[in-house]
């Protein structure tokens, strides 16, 4: 039961309410679909002015309240991070849902199917947290995705920051769904930086297989610091054969594990192809 609904316009007012146990509501697409009997007090965090995308030389700051529609249309985010964020945001659910879902809600909800967390992990993003009476703090997305207490508890996510560099970065992104509005059965997101013929800072993130997306460290190690090599790609994909899969009703674990391998290969090939052409 929703006991009270507050719509503060100042961050400080929202933080005071959150500190006393109220729950942040962004797009409401998770909170209002959940049939909760919990007695809660809500704080609408969409009127706090945290809906800006600010592009600096070395980073882009995406406000907590930016909707996926806005992110999907954010032509002002440059380079590989911009192209990847736009592609991932546009793939989520349906148009009215993208008009509602916020970046912070997609991260904080920690749903296994959420499409931004894998991409933010591949981009080495940081989550900016605000809490009453404390200085703003920044947390690597990888730490935020770990099980246990989340840095925003008792406060809120104010923004997500993605680093921008002048380096030649490329990506590959593959997400498998049965219908456009379905949840992903498996997702693979690759980012890497071209250094002459060599590929560095290889990130291969697998999403939708387990409760949280994770980097496939063994596969990354097979490719890090090397030029494109078909045999190394085969070896990298082979390391995915024992990926743990959390069962769900969408498809069998074996199918989703195999799918993750196929999608990872496709994502890698897209990234290598892009690197060859750039």
């Amino acid at each position, binding site marked *: 039961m929703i006991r009270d*609904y507050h719509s503060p316009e100042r961050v400080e007012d929202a933080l005071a309410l959150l500190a006393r146990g109220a729950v942040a509501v962004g797009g409401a697409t998770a909170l209002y679909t959940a049939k909760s009997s919990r007695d809660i007090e809500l704080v609408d965090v969409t009127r706090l002015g945290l809906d800006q995308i600010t592009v600096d030389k070395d980073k882009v700051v995406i406000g907590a309240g930016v909707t996926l529609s806005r992110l999907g249309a954010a032509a002002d985010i440059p380079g590989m991070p911009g192209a990847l964020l736009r592609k991932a945001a546009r793939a989520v659910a349906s148009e009215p849902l993208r008009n509602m879902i916020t970046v912070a809600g997609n991260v904080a909800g920690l749903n296994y199917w959420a499409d931004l967390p894998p991409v933010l992990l591949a981009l080495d993003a940081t989550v900016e947290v605000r809490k009453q009476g404390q200085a703003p703090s920044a947390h690597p997305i990888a730490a935020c995705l770990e099980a246990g207490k989340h840095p925003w508890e008792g406060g809120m996510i104010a923004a997500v920051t993605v680093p921008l560099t002048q380096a030649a970065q490329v990506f590959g992104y593959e997400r498998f769904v049965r219908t456009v509005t379905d949840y992903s059965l498996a997702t693979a997101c690759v980012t890497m930086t071209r250094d002459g013929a060599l590929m560095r800072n290889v990130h291969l993130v697998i999403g939708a297989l387990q409760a949280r997306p994770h980097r496939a460290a063994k596969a990354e190690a097979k490719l890090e610091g090397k030029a494109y090599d078909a045999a190394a790609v085969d070896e990298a994909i082979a390391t995915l054969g024992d990926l743990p899969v959390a069962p769900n009703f969408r498809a069998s674990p074996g199918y989703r594990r195999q799918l993750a391998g196929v999608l990872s290969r496709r994502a890698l090939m897209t990234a290598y192809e892009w690197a060859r052409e750039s």
Partner: protein
Amino acid sequence: MRFNAKINGLKREIECAPGATLLEVLRLMGYKSVKQGCDREGTCGACTVLLDGTPILSCITPAPRVAGREVTTVEALGDPSRPHPIQAAFVNAGAVQCGYCTPGMLLSTKALLDRNKKPTDEQIATALSGNLCRCTGYVKIVEAVRNAAAALTEEQKP
């Protein structure tokens, strides 16, 4: 809770429980074009309304969120004696069967054509991706949107 919002161009005072959804409030106020298709799942789009011109799902929108903002339902478009060109296009193309999805389809179409006068079929499909129809098979709906775009462009010619 008590707050003001503009609904179909008219300033209205709304009184509701803090946990009320926009769908519940609109239907209680008599805007019966706004339908509930799924059980607050956000999957069917029958409850689509425009919030400041943007399609959203009223079944999962907190009612107090619309305070000080503008909501548009199909009642604002037209009626059988004076249908909006989009409504006329849906009727003429045979894009309406049971009609349950139609209000949501019309509003998603309006939002699309307000920002894009000549959408491609792909853009139409994206704009209607949140609106499910059990009856028509969508072919006639896409045709209706194309015809509505042409009619609105014709209407705006000097």
